[in-house]
């Protein structure tokens, strides 16, 4: 019992919780979800494959696919309760992808090869971080 209290205090101080209610809110989080994980992994894979199309006419289609999947991931994460960190991550990722989509499919600007590979690389790196961390969410009881 003494050890349990020590752990509880440690968790409370880590989370910045000052009351038991805060501690409960910290504990009560969205658990691992197969669909969320699958969508994050899909974004990662599409970013990886999209980078290979830089400099070709097919890149626009890859960008559209990536935009749709990232939007789906953000919307799915938002539909789950107590999922704040994942909503933050996917919202920021969507804004990064929005820049790519604007350039290729809306403004249709000239883009350099460096921009294309850098952009896809950054999206893949972030999607990898997101996939890894949501893959480690605690499982349902």
């Amino acid at each position, binding site marked *: 019992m003494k050890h349990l209290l020590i752990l509880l205090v440690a968790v409370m101080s880590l989370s910045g919780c000052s009351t038991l209610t805060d501690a409960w809110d910290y504990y009560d989080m969205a658990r691992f979800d197969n669909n969320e994980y699958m969508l994050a992994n899909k974004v990662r894979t599409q970013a990886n494959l999209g980078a290979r199309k830089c400099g070709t006419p097919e890149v626009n289609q890859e960008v559209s696919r990536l935009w749709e999947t990232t939007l789906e991931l953000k919307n799915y994460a938002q539909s789950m309760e107590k999922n704040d960190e994942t909503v933050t991550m996917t919202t920021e990722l969507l804004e990064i992808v929005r820049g790519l989509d604007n350039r290729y499919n809306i403004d249709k600007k000239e883009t350099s090869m460096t*921009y294309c590979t850098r952009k896809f690389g950054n999206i893949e790196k972030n999607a990898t971080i997101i996939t890894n961390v949501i893959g*480690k969410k605690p499982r349902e*009881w």
Partner: protein
Amino acid sequence: MIDNAMKELEDWVGNNHTELADWAKDARSLTEEFKAGDLSEDEYKELMEDLKRSKKISDAADALAVRSRAVELIDNIITSAGVIL
């Protein structure tokens, strides 16, 4: 067992996605590419903005990793207590 759990929790706090991602290094190489003329000014600005967003993603990932581990440890304790009782 609980002492190990506390150590594990502390180790997780030190596990930092921001450091692993090394966004500062990316910013330096982007600047070099811009100076070399490989990126236009608006491309460069957009990519630099992306790094700020990437930092926010890393920070949220770190927070989620710590929270997930803490919750998992509490789950394990509750399960263990149930077995004992």
